[in-house]
């Protein structure tokens, strides 16, 4: 399925992670909880026991933020028997909220998601929780909150371009060094 944005030749923005900048401070997760709380504040969200929908796992000493990638043809959407999990045809965001069919808490989406990015709502509520892309915000709360710029809400092709350029410089540097060694 192609989204209108893509048809018009405009790239889609997504939350991208610069792993080397992540300090594991969990501010992203707290800001996410705040954005999804009644109070809208971090302390309020802690009081309301609202969980963050971006999860940070420790791979040894390296903290790794994990959040929904909003895949096309998403396994969670396909797995959802009730039709609560849907991808918005315009924004491309995958969510189980705000649709006519309500989430029944069957956890099929949790089983299907290869990233483990969907979790159970707290206090035993039968409701799956996941990143909803912070609908209504220009930039997702997690990205705004990250003190180190480890999260970026960017056009994915720009991110890839930046990576390519970095690699290109590394390769060029290696080649220059090698040829000097060879020449010398």
């Amino acid at each position: 399925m192609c989204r209108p944005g893509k048809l018009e030749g405009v790239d889609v923005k997504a939350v991208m992670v610069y792993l080397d900048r992540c300090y594991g401070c969990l501010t992203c997760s707290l800001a996410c909880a705040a954005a999804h709380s009644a109070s809208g504040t971090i302390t309020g969200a802690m009081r309301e026991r609202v969980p963050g929908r971006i999860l940070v796992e420790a791979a040894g000493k390296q903290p790794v933020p994990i959040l929904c990638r909003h895949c096309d043809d998403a396994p969670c959407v396909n797995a959802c028997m009730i039709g609560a999990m849907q991808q918005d045809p315009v924004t491309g965001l995958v969510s189980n909220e705000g649709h006519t069919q309500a989430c029944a808490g069957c956890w099929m989406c949790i089983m299907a998601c290869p990233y483990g990015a969907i979790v159970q709502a707290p206090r035993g509520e039968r409701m799956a929780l996941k990143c909803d892309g912070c609908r209504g915000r220009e930039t997702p709360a997690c990205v705004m909150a990250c003190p180190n710029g480890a999260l970026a809400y960017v056009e994915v092709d720009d991110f890839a371009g930046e990576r390519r350029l970095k690699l290109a410089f590394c390769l060029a540097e290696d080649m220059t060094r090698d040829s000097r060694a060879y020449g010398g």
Partner: protein
Amino acid sequence: MSLCVSADAGLCKFLNRRGDVETSFNRLSGQAVKCGFGLQGICCRLCSNGPCRITLKTSRGVCGATADVIVARNFLRAVAAGAACYLHVVENAANVLKNTDLPYPGEGLLDELAGRFGIGAGGSKEKAAQLAGRVLEDLYRPRGERMELVERLAFPRRFKRWEELGILPGGAKAEVFDALVKSGTNLSSDPVDMLLHCLRLGIATGIYGLTLTNHINDILAGEPEIGTVRVGFSVVDPGYINIMVIGHQQALFSALQRELETPEAVEKARQAGAKGFRIVGSTCVGQDLELRSAREHGVFAGHAGNNFTSEPLLATGGIDLVVTEFNCALPGIEDLCERFRVRQVCIDDVAKKRNAEHLPYDFGDSRAFAGKIMDAALSSYAGRRKEIAPDIPEHGFDGAVAGIGEKSLKKFLGGSYKPLIDLIAGGQIKGIAGVVGCSNLATRGHDVFTLELTRELIRRDIIVLTAGCTSGGLANLGMTVPEAAEQAGEKLKEVCKKMGIPPVLNFGPCLAIGRLETVAAEIAGMLNVDLPQLPLALSAPQWLEEQALADGAFALALGLLIHLGSSPFIEGSELVTGILTRDLEEMTGGRVLVAEDPTQAADAMESHILKKREKLGI
């Protein structure tokens, strides 16, 4: 629940069998994501403009504080808090001494110190009161007045160096007080001055918090004597009423030890259905009790384990009363005490537990106080044993060598350190490593780094002296029995076998880090060199808390290399890291070495020792 990660296989086996019990071992994985700002020491929450963090985008807090300022402030606050802890301990010990009547089991030491401190003639009671008074007087001096006993206790060459550097401390409590003032909001922003303040706090910690506490406890409870003991959970005998002690203040237990031994006490226990009372050692105070009862244990059952074994110890159900007086009284013991119906008594409110009865130590009437503890143990025993069946695993070792102190070691060596010096000079022992401080769970697992590093060191013929939770851990891992010599390098193994000693010498609690300093000073004195010249390196591989940092500050003032298995939250500042790990060596001779791998740490410590040997021409 996740599995236990400890070098102690028996402990893990027990915890895995008791999967229904939650301890720190289960909570570790939930805290695996560490905040990088905290790790680097670059988070400041001193004012309402904050919390501020030094990030890749922002090099200063709102007030203008740089990473250097924030790191130095945080570090100074931590060292001050650690110093405060040890100073609290020596203050209480001095007050106990002041209020204790004869006889003093360590009367010889009292006379010796009275001589050194210039305390005139008089009866022992008078001498003890005056000595305690002199200690307290120093602690309470204003910051502008130098403490008097520093010069009388410090290694003379060190004292001179400290004087030259201007780091001789004023009144210890005032030094802590002003460290807090200095590191407050918009006060000092001079990282170098704050690090110098850390050294002053280190000296106050070492001379007063460590050495003088040891001396006072030796007077009150007798000096250490070498013997062999049983260690581990198997010291708990369910036939007795078992009182588990947690803390660092043996002085507060002398009266209780005496009371529990009386025939009346034994009779009371018998009427309740037990064979008598036993004190079960846990954390550093257990190590202190072990140190002074290696020959004659009396009511002391033995040392069960270090800080993070205290929760599992409660889960054995064999403990009838918990008495807390200092750290490491983990908050986690509260729920375990409720679950296993163990009554808790807190005798010093610095270690108050939510559900503990506060029964403050009575300096004036320690006997009546001991009676109250005994009654609490009796009532707890009677209530709980109907419902809880003790489940004590086979755990620990027999024949562990304990009771090693600066004097008992010297006596063992034949009255002088010369045999040890000869072994070092001759190369049979390459050098000395002090593996000291705490245990933690995060640096590779409970006692894991400590064990791996110790093994690496003894394999290289470096003898290990240990004090603190490291020694409790190493004892429970069988490293302090003479048979552990098999794990040492060929030369050290031969020395150990000939002398019948283990390659790891257990000096007891973290307070005994002060004893290691005394041993080092005696050796340096005999060689007519200064401490930094000795083939000696320290490591606090699994340092846990602020007290360890205050100990570390003492080591730096003494001019020693101190290895840490994880950074003391300073890496966010190049300046502070540079001073502590490099530049300080030119001032005091000491420096910090952070190595997160045991082999690398052992390599660095060994090369330090070899360098010192070379300079000494041995």
